[in-house]
């Protein structure tokens, strides 16, 4: 009988399901991947490699949902974070590092004048929306259909009728659909507090979409005319598309920028940055959380910003991602598949044009997982600075085998 390579993962899950709703909840729920093909629990990681609870290793392209940018366990980041932690992480007051990091971020993220820190990306987006409402004295928030801005009730996919009031003033347009956006501004004239967008559109289960060149100028124009604010949710893209913030890459001019994930390479830290225009609202708003000013993640973030630049930054991830995209698409074509990698090079996602229902994605990613490559079938991937050219080559090589097997009906 074949040995189950995820036996321990499954055994732990069985125990967990008795005491934890769903066993593992949310985006890490096994059902979001392909149960039986991917591990549920991971034990350790180093660089771009994961080791699961059963001892299987994977070359990882999910990067802790984007939070790993300079590699798991990056020595410089870990040293900075753990040294700060040894001297005291969560204290009554912040450490002086908070000012250092704020200065670094404000001088790095283009156009921003101030920053506040929190833990999760959701903290930052929720705060941004609250500040926009307070600063403008209006309620309506415009977002793109299928965009993810966090797990708070104002924007999450928890569409329970009991919670519907929380999202009452959230309205959607199709990403890049300027007429739709203009129509929303017309319909809600005098009531729009802000537009919140991700630099590029990365809905789950669907190909990614880059912004049309007209999108951001139009957002700026419409916001100015309505006296509304523009919030850039750079939580997923941040530090992978442009060193000064992804908005710079696409010529966008936001009033606030949310970052998290890659900011501290997985140490828990989020930040909201803003322009002078919103400073007053931020000054008067009660912003707090027990853990929000802990020092170790801030030390890790400072080291992470240095490491990103030292390791080649955005340009290197772009180069690696481009090789991956070109290699995968060519390998797919050779086997007769219309495999297409969408999104920016450093944040790729492969789908099959002939199969919007994702059966082929599931076969492809499942077979890649069998070979030790962690490519999410339903969520975009990430390239990190810990990936190497050899990693990309081995991924493309394995993909070539998998496409051939799929063609032969064996995968």
């Amino acid at each position, binding site marked *: 009988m074949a040995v189950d390579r995820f036996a321990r993962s*499954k055994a732990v*899950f*069985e125990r967990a*399901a008795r005491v934890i*709703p*769903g*066993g*593992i*909840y949310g985006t890490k*729920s*096994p*059902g*979001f991947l*392909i*149960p*039986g093909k991917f591990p*549920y629990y991971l034990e350790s990681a180093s660089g771009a490699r994961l080791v699961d609870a059963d001892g299987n290793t994977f070359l990882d392209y999910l990067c802790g949902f984007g939070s790993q940018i300079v590699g798991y366990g990056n020595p410089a980041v870990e040293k900075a974070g753990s040294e700060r932690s040894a001297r005291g992480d969560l204290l009554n007051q912040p450490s002086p590092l908070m000012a250092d990091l704020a200065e670094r971020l404000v001088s790095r993220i283009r156009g921003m004048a101030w920053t506040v820190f929190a833990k999760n990306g959701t903290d930052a987006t929720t705060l941004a929306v609250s500040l926009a409402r307070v600063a403008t004295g209006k309620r309506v928030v415009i977002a793109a259909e299928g965009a993810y801005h966090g797990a708070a009730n104002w924007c999450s*996919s928890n*569409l329970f*009728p*009991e919670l*519907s009031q929380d999202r009452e003033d959230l309205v959607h347009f199709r990403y890049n659909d300027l007429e739709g956006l203009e129509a929303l501004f017309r319909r809600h004239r005098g009531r729009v507090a802000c537009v919140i967008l991700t630099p590029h559109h990365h809905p*789950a*289960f669907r190909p990614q979409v880059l912004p049309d060149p007209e999108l951001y100028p139009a957002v700026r124009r419409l916001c100015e005319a309505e006296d509304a604010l523009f919030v850039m949710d750079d939580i997923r893209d941040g530090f992978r598309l442009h060193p000064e913030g992804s908005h710079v890459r696409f010529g966008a001019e936001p009033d606030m920028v949310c970052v998290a994930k890659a900011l501290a390479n997985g140490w828990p830290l989020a930040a909201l940055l803003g322009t002078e225009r919103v400073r007053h609202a931020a000054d008067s708003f009660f912003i707090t959380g027990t853990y929000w000013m802990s020092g170790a993640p801030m030390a890790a973030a400072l080291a992470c910003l240095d490491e990103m630049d030292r390791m080649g930054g955005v340009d290197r991830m772009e180069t690696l991602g481009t090789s991956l995209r070109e290699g995968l698409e060519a390998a797919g074509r050779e086997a007769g598949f219309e495999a297409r990698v969408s999104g920016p090079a450093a944040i790729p996602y492969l789908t099959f044009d002939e199969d*919007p*229902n*994702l*059966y082929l994605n*599931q076969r492809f990613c499942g077979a890649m997982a069998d070979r030790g490559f962690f490519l999410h079938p*339903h969520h975009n991937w990430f390239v990190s600075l810990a990936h190497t050219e050899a990693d990309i080559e081995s991924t493309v090589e394995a993909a070539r085998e998998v496409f051939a097997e799929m063609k032969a009906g064996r995968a």
Partner: protein
Amino acid sequence: MRPFLDDLSAVELRVLARIRLAVTARLAAAAAAHDPGLAEHGSRPFRLALRVPGLPRAFVAKTEGPVTAWAGGETPVQRLPPDLTLFFPSSRDCARVLDGSAGRVFPIPGGWGAARALRYFRAAAASAPRMLRSPDTPAVLRAALLLEAAMSALVETANADPAMAPRLAHAPDGLVVVDAGGGVRRALRKEGGRLRSVRVPEDGQDAVLAFRDPESAVAVLAGKKSAVTALGACEASIRGLVPLVQGLFAVLDRASRYLAVKAEKEAGHGR
């Protein structure tokens, strides 16, 4: 949603009544194929309607083929007047009576088959719950009955409960096959905010929710295990358009809340 009948809003009461009408009618028809005692009652023609003012009627009828049910606004193949109508004066009465509690129901005869229809319905209404309860019932049959009930509850909840519209709008359109194992399969098509039962296609389905075996299907459909836990335990799998199935899970969750609504408040609830 509040857990007691008396606390439901008027809209929720109507949704619950629609669900009960549909589930009762479908199980009453489905049971005939599996319960020899019932098959006897259902050997001669009859047409039975279940009616609540303002709601689409449900029908159970025996004409040429096997005993068949229609609900949720579907029209029976033969549009003849029913032999018997069980008339519930209100959604509340319907929800109570079909849940086994006291309530008002008036039999209104309309044709020669009235007595047969009543005999059949009385026997059938008890048959499916008995089969579901009995430890001797094979898992495949249990899965088939539960799937029948779940599908009709899903369709009614999706189509009747206004609270489901945003949830359904969030999910893509398409056709889902639910495979409970042991050859028990059903299909649903989601189109905009509506859901309907359709014939299981040979191929071309947009998503498949497959249970490892009928026992696994029973655990989820009877509400003993959550779908997400069953997925993690590899007792169920989703292939294809996952968000379409996730949309159905949300409706299933809501339907199961309706089905758990209690007619009476008992002491010690909530512990």
